[in-house]
């Protein structure tokens, strides 16, 4: 009987091994087709890209772009597909992708060469760089003023890394989430908070007193946002990229940009000419 139990366990283990290695090679499009569900990784606190709005619904620029990808997938598979959203964080998003729990991480993930070892990225849908948010009238105007100052960062972010390596004079205080860091800044426990400029603009406009906050600096890092997916799945990647290219070409991208970053948008942030050209150059001919 004992022997039988052992063999049974072994059989289970082999089955599990076989099962997962089969799942491992299953292409994303096929997985979506058989399950009828397309799962994206989103955030609840990264306005205006991916967040929970005042009506308690998930919303944001990245989420809207993901909707476009969703439509493209439905068109490609000629089937009604359910769109599901799963909460992610900088530490969980890559494991969630590799374990098949999420098919596409849309939120605000910076495309880096190190991350390309683990995941593949779509074309760049937004560019920003790290700046500082300070209280109005603060002496901090940029990286030259941060020596000895208390600078808040988000744990595990790309800009924290740059600060730690290049600006060793600054006194870094890292928080697991943006809300805690901004609260510490509001209470004067930090002299500045460093993050991607666009997220700082988001914080500024989401705060109770937007004109009390100033975003300063000149991009100590370059942060191109891409949508992340499992590695070596070129068919799925093509669907995602084509959806983005068509949105840029057809103008929907710019409409969405205007909705979120236009003068009446959530975070007014005019598009630079350079960024516009960059977007258009990413679109390859039909």
């Amino acid at each position, binding site marked *: 009987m004992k022997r039988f139990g052992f063999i049974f366990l072994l059989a289970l283990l082999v089955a599990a091994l076989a099962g*997962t290695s089969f799942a491992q090679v299953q292409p994303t499009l096929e997985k979506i087709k058989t399950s009828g569900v397309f799962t994206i990784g989103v955030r609840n606190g990264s306005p205006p890209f991916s967040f929970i709005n005042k009506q308690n619904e998930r919303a944001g620029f990245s989420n809207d772009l993901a909707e476009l990808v969703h439509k493209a997938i439905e068109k490609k598979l000629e089937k009604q597909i359910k769109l599901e959203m799963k909460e992610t964080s900088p530490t969980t998003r890559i494991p969630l992708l590799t374990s098949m729990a999420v098919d596409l991480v849309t939120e605000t993930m910076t495309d880096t060469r190190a991350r390309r070892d683990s995941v593949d990225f779509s074309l760049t849908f937004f560019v920003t760089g790290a700046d500082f948010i300070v209280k109005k009238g603060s002496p901090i105007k940029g990286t030259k003023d941060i020596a000895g100052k208390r600078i808040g960062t988000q744990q*595990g972010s790309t800009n924290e890394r740059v600060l730690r390596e290049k600006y060793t004079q600054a006194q870094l205080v890292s928080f697991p989430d943006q809300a805690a860091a901004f609260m510490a800044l509001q209470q004067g426990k930090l002299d500045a908070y460093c993050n991607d400029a666009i997220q700082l603009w988001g914080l500024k406009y989401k705060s109770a007193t937007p004109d009390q906050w100033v975003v300063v600096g000149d991009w100590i890092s370059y942060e191109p946002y891409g949508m992340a997916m499992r590695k070596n799945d070129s068919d799925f990647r093509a669907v995602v990229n084509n959806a983005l290219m068509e949105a840029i070409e057809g103008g929907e991208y710019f409409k969405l940009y205007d909705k979120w970053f236009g003068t009446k948008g959530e975070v007014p942030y005019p598009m630079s000419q350079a960024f516009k050209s960059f977007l258009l150059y990413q679109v390859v001919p039909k």
Partner: protein
Amino acid sequence: MFFGFLGMTYEFKWSVLWTQPYLTWLIDGLLTTLRLASISWCIAIFFGIIFGAMRTVPFRPVRAIATFYVEFFRNVPLLVWLFFWYFGAPEAFPEVIRQWFIRHGIEFWSAVAAISVYHGARFAEVIRAGIQAIPRTQLEAGLSSGLSVVATYRLIIIPIALRLIVPPATNESLNLLKNTSLAMTIGVAELTFAARQVETYSAKAVEALTSAALIYLVFCLSISSVMNWIEAKFAIPGLIARGARAEH
């Protein structure tokens, strides 16, 4: 290899733990953890003895104060207390003091306050249990020999109680050491923080977190062996009936 069956191919690289700057981060993290734990432990023990003793004295208002302290602080999660002591309490201080703390590691001292007050309440319960395990006749004998209540407590009750509570107090001390990892949420760069930091920079999660786990394990085991030694060393012969206790 083993992780193959989780659907991931993971390559172990234990050498990240002793490459720079990761090693320095881990050591700094460990030192912060030890400093945080030892300072908090001393304050918690102090609060524990005071309030634990107060909960047993035959005078109702004193007992009420101590009961309030214990029930208020131990019945709210430590994480909430950390946020309270970091985001809430410092705002009530005068600006000069507040600024001084901000310039002198406010994250660390808020964590000390949260952990020591929370664990002080838990230590108080342990000490109360120790005191109440002592027969009432001890107190009466002390009083009738002419000692005051305070002197009876100081000379008779508390010395015996402290011996009785070594095992549960060890338990609490280990909890305290492990709970310091929560200080990460208010930006204290302690050991778990350092391990997470190594993880995000090197993408070697298993190695970084295993190293933190092993360090906690080593320190917890050392604490329990020291406490075992203390228990044996200060035992009052004949006071406590013991089974055949394994000698270490």
